[in-house]
């Protein structure tokens, strides 16, 4: 229950920060900004989904985490780390060819890692873990 509430609080904080960034930042939003917002909202949606699932489990009197969810998290962390290495390699390769600033590339890398983690989690959560 506590961890689910922490997830909701973190999601709300990120949303508030994005809101401040949107309204107090530059008057015109560039395509990079819009893509960043889209990815951030996607990641927040994922976090809220996880929090909702944990809250539901707690309400039903079930443990918020069990051996399957822990295994899914372990596999997700391992695979997403492995794929993220290639993402950073790609970013390093393209950094000379693209004219984006360093902080933009780093932000893209971090958001990319979050997206990769989300996709890996969805794959393992819906496909399952069998014969391992």
């Amino acid at each position, binding site marked *: 229950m506590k961890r689910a509430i922490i997830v909701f609080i973190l999601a709300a904080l990120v949303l508030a920060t994005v809101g401040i960034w949107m309204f107090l930042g530059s008057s015109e939003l560039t395509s990079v900004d819009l893509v960043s917002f889209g990815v951030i909202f996607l990641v927040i949606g994922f976090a809220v989904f996880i929090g909702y699932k944990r809250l539901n489990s707690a309400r*039903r*009197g*079930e*443990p918020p985490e069990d051996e*399957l969810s822990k295994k899914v998290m372990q596999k997700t962390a391992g695979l997403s780390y492995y794929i993220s290495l290639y993402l950073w390699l790609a970013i390093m390769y393209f950094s000379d060819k693209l004219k984006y600033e360093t902080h933009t590339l780093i932000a893209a890398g971090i958001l990319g890692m979050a997206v990769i983690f989300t996709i890996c989690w969805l794959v393992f959560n819906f496909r399952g*873990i069998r014969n391992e």
Partner: protein
Amino acid sequence: MNNRIKEFRARFNLTQEDLAKKVNVRRETIVFLEKNKYNPSLRLAHDIASVFDARIEEIFLFE
């Protein structure tokens, strides 16, 4: 590995939620087990077998 959890659950008139509570896992885990999308740990297999008062190999069938 296949299993007969659904069959045993029907025999004991238990819902997925009831079984999940008895073996202290989430209902989703029981769903995944019944769909053969997850192979349980030895501990969980033992707990499930205990609920149905059966041996592990009666419920989990190794091919």
